[in-house]
């Protein structure tokens, strides 16, 4: 489903900084992997490239056979809208919207009608245990609650791929465990593929496979020095 081949990404600066050099990753539907690595190793950069938020200098990213690097920003954005979901470390719920409206937003963007949207929002909020808070303002939730809503939002439109960037970085241990279990359960339920970028061994352990990103590239954790 996702084929990342020989990605090269550098950032301008003095000196010129090469963050990713020949990174490859293959992912099948329903497969959930973790990417670990030291700070500055390029984990978030890899995630941003896969999401189409940035473009590599070289290499290929194919999602369901479609080459992302050949698309313009608007086409990549539409692809992200329909086939990807995002979970951020800082939650990034829209502060002006209620809990339900935040979850409904990807469905609205994909043109889902009002009845089906309401049905799906209820289903997702029920699944993440936030149905009772659906009318609350998102700014009034705790960190753990915000991340549960963010997971519901990321999965509401049944994306093929969910990208999670340090989703438990701002949470306490109990909330983190709860959120990770929820994310894993929902991905499996929807047969969606997922990439979890994390520093946490505990978080990584909830995935099917663990990769480590180093200067030499991306490889299974066991292969790392």
């Amino acid at each position, binding site marked *: 489903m996702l084929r990342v081949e020989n990605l090269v990404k550098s950032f301008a600066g003095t000196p010129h900084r090469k963050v990713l050099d020949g990174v490859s990753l293959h992912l099948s539907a329903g497969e959930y992997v973790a990417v670990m690595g030291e700070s500055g190793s390029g984990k*978030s*950069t890899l995630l*941003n490239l896969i*999401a189409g*938020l*940035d473009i590599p200098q070289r290499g290929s990213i194919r999602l369901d056979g479609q080459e992302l690097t050949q698309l313009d*920003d*608007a086409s990549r*954005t*539409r692809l*992200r*809208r*329909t086939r*990807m979901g*995002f979970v*951020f*470390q*800082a939650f*990034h719920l*829209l*502060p*002006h*919207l209620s809990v339900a*409206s935040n979850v*409904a*937003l*990807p469905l*609205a*963007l*994909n*043109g889902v009608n009002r009845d089906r949207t309401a049905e799906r929002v209820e289903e997702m909020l029920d699944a993440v245990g936030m149905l009772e808070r659906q009318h609350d303002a998102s700014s009034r939730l705790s960190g753990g609650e915000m991340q549960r809503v963010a997971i519901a*939002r990321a999965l509401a439109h049944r994306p093929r791929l969910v990208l999670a960037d340090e989703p438990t*970085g*701002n949470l306490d241990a109990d909330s983190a465990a709860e959120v990770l279990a929820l994310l894993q359960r929902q991905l499996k339920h929807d047969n969606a593929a997922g990439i979890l970028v994390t520093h946490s061994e505990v978080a990584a352990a909830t995935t099917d496979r663990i990769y480590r990103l180093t200067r030499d590239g991306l490889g299974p954790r066991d292969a790392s020095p």
Partner: protein
Amino acid sequence: MIAPLLFDAAVIGPLRHSPGRTVLAVLAIALGVALGLAIHLINRTAADEISLAARSAYGVADLAVESIASGFDENLYPMIARLPGVAAVSPEVEFEAKLVGRRGALKLRGVDAFRFRAMQPQFAALAGPMSHDSYAPTAADAIYLSASAARELALNVGDTLMVQVGLQSHPLHVGGVLPQAAMEDRAGVLDIGTAQWKFGRLGQLSRLNLRLAQGTSEKRVREMLAAMLPATVRVTTPGEATDEALRLSRAYRSNLTALALVALFTGGFFVYSTQSLAMLRRRREFAILHAIGVTRGEQLWLSLCGAALSGLCGAALGIAMGVGIASFGLQAIGADLGAGYVSGPSSLDLRLPEVAAFAILGLLVAIVGALRPALDASNIPTASALKAGDVAGDDIRPRGALALGLVGLAAMVLAVPPIDGLPLPGYAAIALLLLAAIVAMPSLVRCLLRYAPRLPGVTGQLAMAQIWGAARYATLSIAAIIVSFSLMVSMAIMVTSFRQSLDSWTQKLLPADVYVRAGYVGQTSYLDEHSARQIAQLPGVERVEFNRFAQIQLSSQFAPATLIARTLDPPSAERALWLVGSVADLDHKPAGASGGAAAALQPVPVWINEVAADLFALRPGDALELPLAGHQVAVSVHGIWRDYEHQNGAIVMNRDAYVRLTGDLAVNTVWIWMKEGASVPALQEAIRGVLPAGAEFDFRTPGDLRRMSLAAFDRTFAVTYLLELVAVFIGLFGIAAGISSQTLARRAEFGALRHLGLTRAQVGTMLAIEGTVLGAMGVAVGLLTGAIISLILIYVVNRQSFHWSMDLFVPAGWLAALSGALIAAAALVAVVSGRQAMSGDAVRAVKEDW
């Protein structure tokens, strides 16, 4: 298609979330639209009234033969009536009658009622009742008043109106009031014979209105007329005359409109400033939307929708306010806002296309103001904006070269002559300079900060570091002040310069102790020479000078200029007039410049005002011919004098020469120098004693005239003062919005500083320093830009609009006080916002507003 939910998330939500900022942006647009619409409506009403008044003089005439001096020989009437192609001719004599017991004069039109009907169908409708009325227009002493004249003079049928001819009073009986459509201007109609006889115009006519036979070539008739008419008579059409009447007030109306558009521009810039700050604050929201699938095009569209919504609300509010202001202005001040082009209150006639145009203008200003911030927002680098702890970078780009280019372009535009008599290049240069100041802001901020003195103490250093680090916020905050403050500074300098110059001018031009005036240009009242001489011989009078005013047409393209015949010693004219150019400056003196016996045969020396010099392209040493007493008189321009009174041009001639050329011994004004210790009230009584009983005259001291001039000036510039206030208001909005939004977004920083051991007072001091430095930078650049703009207003725009020169006066005290107030306001806003942001539990309760 943008989903309603997304619209709510990206458009309505932010507006609702920041009601203070939203309301201020809406108000800024509303103020601009309101002032623009109000001034347009008032201007248009004035133009309509001027146009209708001009047209009503001609009715349905195809052509008009008019005097360009005081009148023409009535023997022309039968000659013209017999011309082939002329179907009907209506003769008229027209003049201003001084009203007894009332201020001002009334235009009187002496007509042949039977001929007049052919030109005025509305008047013809009255023919039935008129013929049976004891006060028919053919009856002596009967006057028919236009509806507006009857209303303003509070006269009804049967009432008596007293008018003054020379120093004698004459009664006119109101025989009827004409319907509004029959005569639009403030005037009265009476029998032509009565008018000629009672008002000393026997054998004279002012105008012949002509109807041409069907199929007649207007061009052919004009050619025949041109061949037979003397130089002091011209041929015109109602359309040409209307255009000419409108041209008189066009510069004034155009300048007001430009000022109103400036208010709208300032409102638009406020939108730009607030939107830019909002976009910077909401960059993460935009990044989230982009991450979850909202394209950059859709983001741009959403941002513009938000601006359009503010613009629509502002336009709707502005239209309501504008209509209210216009209605009030028309009722309270009149259609010309006190400038003297039309008289009396007017009613508002609202037209849908105009209202729609201003609504669209408000909408466009809001959208254009938000365009750049919206483009920036839609191009936010998503990945970096989503990082925890990300803040807007200091990504300002210095554009010094572009700013210099704009200044150069402004200088080039200034060299372009006025377009169709309007100072449009001057206004374009002002707009370019404002743009240059805004574009130059990043470079200026960098430069000012680089050379700013190092402040002592940790709070001072933290404050300067914050301004340097958040230079983009600083630039936007300052830019709002610069635009509004520079406009305010420029208007303050221009108005002060004008007012001071007017004050100096009145003092220079009013050297006598007392002024006695009976009538003015074209009016029926005057002092005969005998009465004037009697005044000169009164006890307490040391010496006198006599003035006589007359109308004189120098060009068919312009309204008649004023001829002022006054006691004047040509070699020392500079003592009586404020000369700005003279033949004394020339290497070769023109004919007539020297005295002696030969001077009698030489051109008569005259001194023209600046308006006449500009309108008729005359310079010292130029020769021209004046139509005086039915013949052309050769004169020579000996000097140009500064004059703020006669807007259609004025020519001063020695009274002895005028009397010799015209035989007119009448006097309009007597200037009186009093003996030491003489009493002004006693002199006034003595003058009343030598003049006929009931004769009306104005008796003024220089102090009275100075007060009246300055009061008229303040009335005329009332709108400018209002616009200045609006500019200050918007400037304060801008600085408050900029600084408070920045401060409220820095809660985390304040928390960190408190953890590091800074007291609340120290944080407050730091914010006060930031506010003071930002305010001072804005004020400094605003003062500089405003000063340059004021020079353009004084030396280009005013000169091209009104042909007036003035000296530069800077209201230093006022500007210093205002600068101090703005800087203090900036510091205060910063401190108050900081206190809100640091107020413990209240932090969560207080929304990031403004």
